[in-house]
């Protein structure tokens, strides 16, 4: 429980910083549920984790309705993308980068948005980077960048 609550206390804080560009989103959420607006990042994490369909639409739904529950990273299969084993399929839950907004934006532009399915294809011969298949493209990321993407395992 200790780990969990620490995660939660960090989650919204980081979320507010990294999601600063999500002003439009946060404002929408603010309208829907004024007291919950600070947790955009955490909201994404949880809303996707709790919806089995996990499509982007459900993320939006989660944001708009402002449902809120502590994100549960101890939940089976939720991890940082760089920990996902080659050959496995995962689904993106959240993208956060300690205030580096441009980096979050770029990872998202590359297709790493919540709800997206990612197949972990292979590590490079020297262990880094790793090749990921998503949205019809093959993108390779170093561990450092992949660590910013939170995913949930889909195949066991």
């Amino acid at each position, binding site marked *: 429980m200790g780990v969990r609550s620490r995660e939660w206390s960090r989650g919204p804080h980081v979320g507010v910083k990294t999601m600063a560009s999500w002003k439009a989103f946060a404002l929408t959420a603010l309208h829907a549920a004024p007291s919950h607006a600070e947790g955009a990042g955490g909201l994404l994490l949880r809303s996707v984790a709790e919806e089995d369909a996990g499509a982007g639409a459900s993320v939006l739904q989660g944001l708009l309705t402002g449902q809120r529950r502590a994100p549960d990273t101890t939940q089976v299969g939720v991890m940082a993308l760089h920990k996902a084993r080659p050959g496995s399929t995962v689904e993106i839950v959240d993208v956060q980068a300690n205030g580096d907004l441009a980096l979050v934006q770029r990872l998202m532009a590359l297709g790493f948005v*919540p709800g997206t399915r990612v197949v972990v294809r292979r590590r490079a011969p020297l262990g880094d980077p790793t090749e990921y298949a998503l949205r019809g493209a093959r993108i*390779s990321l*170093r561990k450092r960048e992949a660590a910013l993407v939170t995913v949930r395992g889909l195949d066991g």
Partner: protein
Amino acid sequence: MTITRLALVGSPNCGKTTLFNALTGLRQKIANYPGVTVEHVEGHVDLGNGAKVALIDLPGTYSLDPLSPDEQVTLDALRGHLDGIGTPDGVVIVADATTLRRSLPFVGEVLHQRLPSILVVTMIDELKARGGALKLDVLQAELGIPVVGVVGNRGIGLDDLKHELGQPGKWPAPPDHMPSEIVSRFIWADAILDKAVVPPREDRGWTDKLDKIVLHPILGLNLFALVMFLFFQIVFVVAAPLQDLMEAMVVGLGELLRTALPDGLIESLLIDGLFGGVGSVVVFVPQIALLLLMIAFLEGSGYMARAAFVIDRVMGWAGLEGRCFIALLSSYACAIPGIMATRAVPDPKSRLATIMVAPFMTCSARLPVYVLFISAFIPETRVGGVVNLQGLTMFGLYLLGSVSAMIAAVIFKRGVLRGQTYPFYMELPPYRMPTAKVVFNHVSRGVRAFLKKAGTIILVASIAIWALLHFPQVEPPAEIANDEAAVRAYQIEHSAAADIGRVLEPAIAPLGFDWKIGIGLIASLAAREVIVATLSQIHAYTGDEEDLDGLGERMRAAKRADGTPAYPLPTVLALLVFYVYALQCVSTLAVIRRETGTWRWAAIAFGYMFAVAYGGAFVTHEVASIWL
């Protein structure tokens, strides 16, 4: 009347330049890795009815929040901030049919700019080959802008596209309810694609099969080493006979000219200066063409991006990234495109570090120098029965340059250019067989650039060298007046070049160089090949020998005043090492100045590379003198 200007935008490697070339008839560089186009290029599209529109090819970008200098160009173009080009009259958005789920949100981002737009979907053939399908009419209805499907490299769909390009005024304005935020853009795009696209199989067929080998933990690294190694064996083994043929032709032509012209200074200028100087460099065209051909295959097939993927960890240790590696590999052709390619690198410090080491990568201008000295002085024996020692030496020189570039990059990146690590991401495209046209354009572009250099910098330098070798004119002593070779040697020994060379000699004697090499070194500050032109004039074919032996033969036979060989092996090796390192290329210096915005970095590059060249040559000469 001002011409209609349309801008081409899209994700990297989605086929913009292929489309641009197909529409404009221009021959801009195309290759199969992200980030080939790094600056804007304008061309005209003939619409067939006499009307024309201007098309601006722009660097690819994943979003309109630029991270690297090349992406900034694209944003500036759309905003009308590029010099001499206002806001475009329309935007031609290009998207790869196989990755629409990734690129359609970017289309939405561009539409948000509210410029008249049209979507061109490329690689429709690859989509079909992987079992996918695209309903263009549904896509068009959903997006609210015209949509055209094309296969750029085969010209399919171009007529429809030209028809649309002729009337940007009629393109409906982009819908004004475009989502303004990135996640909602993906949701918007996914909803459209659910209706318009039958997704292709995730499996990429033989690309995936090939990648199992190319990116295999053990096989992959070995294959990389093998590819690099074969590269240089081929340059040596295959192209050498062609070069002999070229050389025989040049010498033969010179002889024809010699019999046709009256003796005198004009004859000497034409035959020694032109044929001896420029001709001695032009004979290396086969090798350069072959080198470019192999680079074109590596770049066009998609292997380049794989090599960057395989080697990225090493680059990461150096504080650089895979894209820097692609820029360095491009420098095998010439440092100038290599330095230009760094525009795709987001981190300014990594970019600068790459620029500062790129000239260590062995460019095609060194090829004539290496080939001349290696073929003349390194025995053509087989190591272990198969590997050509000459090819191996060449490989060694390339390896020395590449490893030194890496080490220099580490020193720069961990020293004066230390900074935060920028994010690395790279797309691995499917393997594609480069079309004959693309390969041909790549090779001919490089060969033309080489010939242009031969006709300008090298020509001027050759004439200057000729003048320095022939003036002041001296009267030979009577006892040798009938021996043409001796008269020549006497003239050269008493020329202005000799005076300059002898002043220089004390400085280069520790490297085992005499004043003749010294003159070559000075002359090749303009361009590396000039040393070949210089030595060719010094060891000119006098017309007396029976057979038309090559320059290498004449250099091997050359003797110093004390009767020892003019080019002992330690001297040759020291010279080769000197050429691995020294930045003797005014064009590269000018490009470094332009890309860094200051002469300071150009001066630093020249200075430190000269120091390394001198030190390396000195150590080589000392060690070789002891061991050989």
